[in-house]
């Protein structure tokens, strides 16, 4: 894990920056999150969900709720452990293909992209020299 986030031993999580990023798109993103009816109808539109034997953790709604949703829930007060947890969700479990379908019309890719922006601001992103992408999770 230390290899994937080189500075995490010495550098503190910049929660101030995370908060300011979260606030920048708070209105739109919180609306998207709060109007999700948790119906799971987006599941089948995700090819990763279909490919991984319909594992719920690949559902678009699951990915959004457990990354951006949790970031808003914690109001940006997060630690490295949490950032590493959502790293796998936003960088590996979603490829931003934009094919997810929401019956209410919630735009899932923009939310995952925003979660990526936030974790990237803390230098949490896949490294080219990582031995295996599985080590992210």
């Amino acid at each position, binding site marked *: 894990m230390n290899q994937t986030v080189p500075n995490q031993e010495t550098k503190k999580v910049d929660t101030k920056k995370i908060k300011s990023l979260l606030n920048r798109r708070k209105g739109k993103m919180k609306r998207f999150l*709060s*109007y999700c009816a948790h119906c*799971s109808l987006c599941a089948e539109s995700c090819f990763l969900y279909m490919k991984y034997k319909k594992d719920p*953790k690949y559902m678009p709604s699951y990915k959004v709720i457990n990354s951006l949703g949790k970031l808003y829930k914690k109001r940006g007060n997060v630690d490295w452990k949490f950032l590493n947890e959502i790293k796998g969700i936003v960088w590996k479990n979603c490829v931003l293909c934009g094919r997810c379908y929401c*019956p*209410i*019309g919630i735009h899932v890719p923009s939310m995952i992209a925003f979660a990526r922006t936030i974790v990237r601001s803390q230098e949490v992103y896949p490294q080219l020299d990582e031995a295996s992408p599985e080590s992210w999770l």
Partner: protein
Amino acid sequence: MFDFVQGPLITIAFIIFILGILFQLIQFFRLTRKKEWGRLPIAYEMKPEKKTAEKILASCLASLNGTLWKTDPVLTVATSVFHVLLILTPLFLLGHNILLDQSCGWSLFSFPEPLSDGLTLIVLLCGVYFLGRRILLAKVRAITTIYDYVVWLIAVAPFLTGFFAYHQWFHYETVMLVHILSGEIMLITIPFTKLGHMLFFFLYRFFIGGEYSFLRGSRTW
């Protein structure tokens, strides 16, 4: 208690419902802004093709394949019926219209009582289906929280208690009190909970969808 629930609380609930929805709408449009360059020019015009009835029907049926109708037909029917009846049944219920006539002097058209009773039963059955799905299906269970069950209860409770009240099951006055109270709770919570998808469904699906297609985008989302 009964007087308050039956009298001022109804007005309060309607005021909160209408003001809440207006507030959310204004906020929604404040979050977006007009595009600096105004409307995009049309790059090309499609020449309308001559369409026969069979072609239109075939294209309609083909487009259904790309929708939820293909992946989950039962839920597609259940959710469509549930949401339409959720609005129509209380609006055209005889009892509600009599009350409306007594208090405002005007009322809407009413369905025959057995029809309203049947429609209520259909809403309840759809509600049971949604609950079953939430409990039994792993993909729905994975993102379900206690809040989802509360929202389900808020949506179904007015119909369940209304059904009991119509058939005069249990203690009528108590059932009626719970019925009115649950309806008021529903109205108050719509603008501020995920029941707000009642309004935002239309904005997200049709308005923003339209902005990206035939409206050619006049705002930045």
